[in-house]
Every structure is written in C-alpha cells, then in structure tokens.
C-alpha cells in the first residue's frame, strides 16, 4: 500500500469522524475502517444483527467479495475508491416501514447529487431507476457507482461503491465503467471529500423519503434521472445481463413514475406496466 493512501486513510478516519458526528447529530454513530473485508455490507449486516446504533459506518480500502444485486461482482482496486455501508435505523424508518423500498431510490439520488457536484460540464451524473448512477459524457454512458440496500431486522444496510480514483479499469468493464478521476482528468477529488458530501446527502434524502414518501423527493429525482421517455428493455423471468439479446422480456418506453416510486412504461401494444422490481435496461445509444 502506498504512503499517500495511508495518509489519506488517516485523514478519512479523523475528518470523517468529525463530519459524521455532525451529520448524525445526537446519534452516537460509530466508524469502522478496515483495509480489506469480504464486503462492507457483510460487516454492517453483522453489526446490525448485533444491534449497532443508527448511522454506524463501515469503510474498506478493498473488498474480496464486493457484490451487487443477485451476486453480481463489484470490483475495485485497493484504496482507490469509496466502499462503504451505513446501518440505517432511524425513528422514521421504524415509523414508516412500508416506505423502506423507497430507500434505494433516495440513495441513488444522494449518490447522483454527490457525484454531479464534483464533475465538470458537460459530464452529467444521472439516476437510472431505481438506483443506478450513470455518467453521461457526449455519446458515452458509463456506470460510476453501485448501490445495494439490504434489510436486516428493523434496520437497513445501505451499501455504496463509488469509483473515485481508478482510471485503469479491467478490460471487461472498461467500456461501461468510469470514475470521478477518469471523468475529470485529474485526482483533485479524494475519497474523504466524497464521503463527507455523500453522508450529508444520504441522510437528507433518506429522511425526506421516509417522512413524506416518494412525492417528497419526486421533483429532485426526476430532475436527476436519465429515463424521461427513454426506450428500455424490460427483462422478465429473473436476473439478466445488460445487453443480452437472449433475455426474455419486452421493449417499452418510460412514461413516468407513480407515487410509490414504481416505474411506468408503455409497451408496443400500448399496455401500461407498473414496475417495482426486476431489470430495466436502457436501449443502446
């Protein structure tokens, strides 16, 4: 591990601790920062099961089994990117358990805002329903962050990976992955700055959606999303790979979001579908 990474990690611990105790004012949040773990969601889930406090934060420099939905791999070179999980267990979450499925949307929005704030025009960070965050530069569209929200008893584990400094991506993901440094063309933005902004945005959006439902974040979500009138492929029959031509499913056009945050699409026969799960792929550009 290089010296700058160690130094940054020390900064992250110190400054992050100060910042987070401000963010979760009055909640005695804890911070665990490890060099390597299987996945920060594993650490957070274990802590949540053991009854850890709201706002407990788990950071890692590297993950040996970073994952997304349905076991998809999330890979990240050591020390370059932000890999974190937060245990969410707020009074609003307990009060409105039916709004839990809106948390991934609020998380996607918070991540998109955090990234958008550090990207220069004309690059644009946008949300793809429900919670993917993509960066658009000219004709290219690449993934910059991944989110995995899991339920553990009365708590949620909000796992987030944001590509910060990686510029040399493995060949198989290079066409579809990017980072803050790759888009900016410099290393001016570090993990510490991103995590500080992210935690503030995250609590803001999640508390809003829990307090007021999807309508409370609708305007900001729609302003940040990239799916208005977008042609999509709705995969049916379980998990599928992006761009796979053998997927069962149907072509459709996005027409909006309902008040529960479900995606409204209309298919070729004019039938409107309300979607709450599954894979929706943007048509190739």
């Amino acid at each position, binding site marked *: 591990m290089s010296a700058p990474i160690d130094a940054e990690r020390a900064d992250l611990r110190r400054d992050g601790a100060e910042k987070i105790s401000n963010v979760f004012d009055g909640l005695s949040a804890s911070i665990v920062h490890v060099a390597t773990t299987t996945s920060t969601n594993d650490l957070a889930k274990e802590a949540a099961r053991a009854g850890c406090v709201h706002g407990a934060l788990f950071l890692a420099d590297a993950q040996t089994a970073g*994952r997304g*939905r*349905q*076991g*998809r791999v999330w890979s990240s070179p050591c020390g370059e990117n932000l890999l974190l999980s937060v245990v969410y267990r707020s009074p609003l979450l307990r009060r409105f*358990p*039916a*709004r*839990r*499925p*809106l*948390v*991934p*949307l609020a998380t996607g929005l918070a991540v998109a805002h955090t990234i958008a704030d550090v990207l220069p025009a004309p690059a644009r960070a946008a949300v793809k329903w*429900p*919670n993917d965050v993509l960066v658009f530069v000219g004709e290219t569209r690449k993934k910059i962050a991944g*989110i*995995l*929200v*899991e*339920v*553990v*008893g*009365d708590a*949620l584990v909000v796992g987030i990976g944001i590509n910060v400094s990686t510029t040399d991506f493995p060949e198989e993901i290079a066409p579809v992955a990017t980072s803050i440094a790759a888009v900016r063309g410099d290393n001016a933005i570090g993990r510490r700055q991103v995590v500080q902004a992210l935690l503030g945005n995250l609590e803001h959006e999640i508390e809003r959606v829990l307090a007021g439902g999807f309508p409370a974040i609708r305007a900001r979500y729609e302003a940040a999303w990239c799916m208005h009138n977008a042609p999509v492929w709705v995969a049916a*029959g*379980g*998990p599928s790979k992006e761009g796979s031509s053998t997927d069962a499913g*149907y072509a459709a056009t996005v*027409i909006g979001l*309902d008040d*529960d*945050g*479900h995606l*409204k699409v*209309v*298919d070729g*026969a*004019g*039938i*409107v*579908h*309300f*979607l*709450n*799960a*599954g894979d929706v792929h943007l048509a190739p550009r």
Partner: protein
Amino acid sequence: MNVDTDKLKSLLAVLAEENVAEFEHEEAGVRIRIVRGGVAVAAAPIASVLHTAPGAAKATEAAIADDGGTDVTSPFVGTFYRAAGPDVPPFIEVGASVKVGQTLCIVEAMKLMNEIEAEFGGVVTAIYAENGKPVEFGQKLFRIKKS
C-alpha cells in the same frame, strides 16, 4: 368478491389518463379486467399493478394445514429469489432441515433486498414459488413441517 373501490377508481383514472385500452389484474384471488371504449387489444401482454412492499422482513405464518405443515408466505410484493446469485446454490431445497433465523429466500422490491428468515425450525416439504418470478403479498412460498 371484495374490491377496494377507491383503488379501482384511481386505477381507472390512471388508465384513462394514459389512454390504456385494456387492463387485467389478479390479486388475492380477485381478477379485474377492464376494457375501455369497447376496444379490445388482442394477445397483448397483461399489465400488473404492483404495490409497495410493507416493512418487516419476517415471513408470515399461514394457517396450519392438515398434514402438519405450515405455509410460509411472502410478506410483500416483489421478485422471489431462491439463491443469493445465479451461480450459487439455493438457500434451501425440499427435504432440507431449517433452523430459526435461517435464510429461506430473498424477496426484492425496487432493489431493496429482503432476506426472508425462518420463524420456526422444521423440514421443507414444498417450494411453491419459482426463482426470479414476481410474488404477491401473502403468496405461498414454502411449506415447512415444524420439528
């Protein structure tokens, strides 16, 4: 038949607003079919209205049946997964013994992953739901004979 008229009214409003010709939906044994303006759409896919999943990620128990088995039902609407990923073994198989707190499956709603845990120990005697398919609130997922 028990139809929520408020829900039906808002449904009709949405169908009219989006100019949907035909709509069919089944939930909890109630099937609703709406054809607007007498225009029928042939062989079209059926749209479904899905409801946001309510909270607690605990499987609910249905009535105990004659064979001594107990049905575990879905606590919310979502997509049913028998395994943590496409390339890993299912959490449970028929004939397997399960302990309290053991993960039975995942039900996903808007990418919120809910691991459904066993509320009692026993032996799995049936798996009703199909991997990767949508499940409704209260739909039977498993049958477990309590030990």
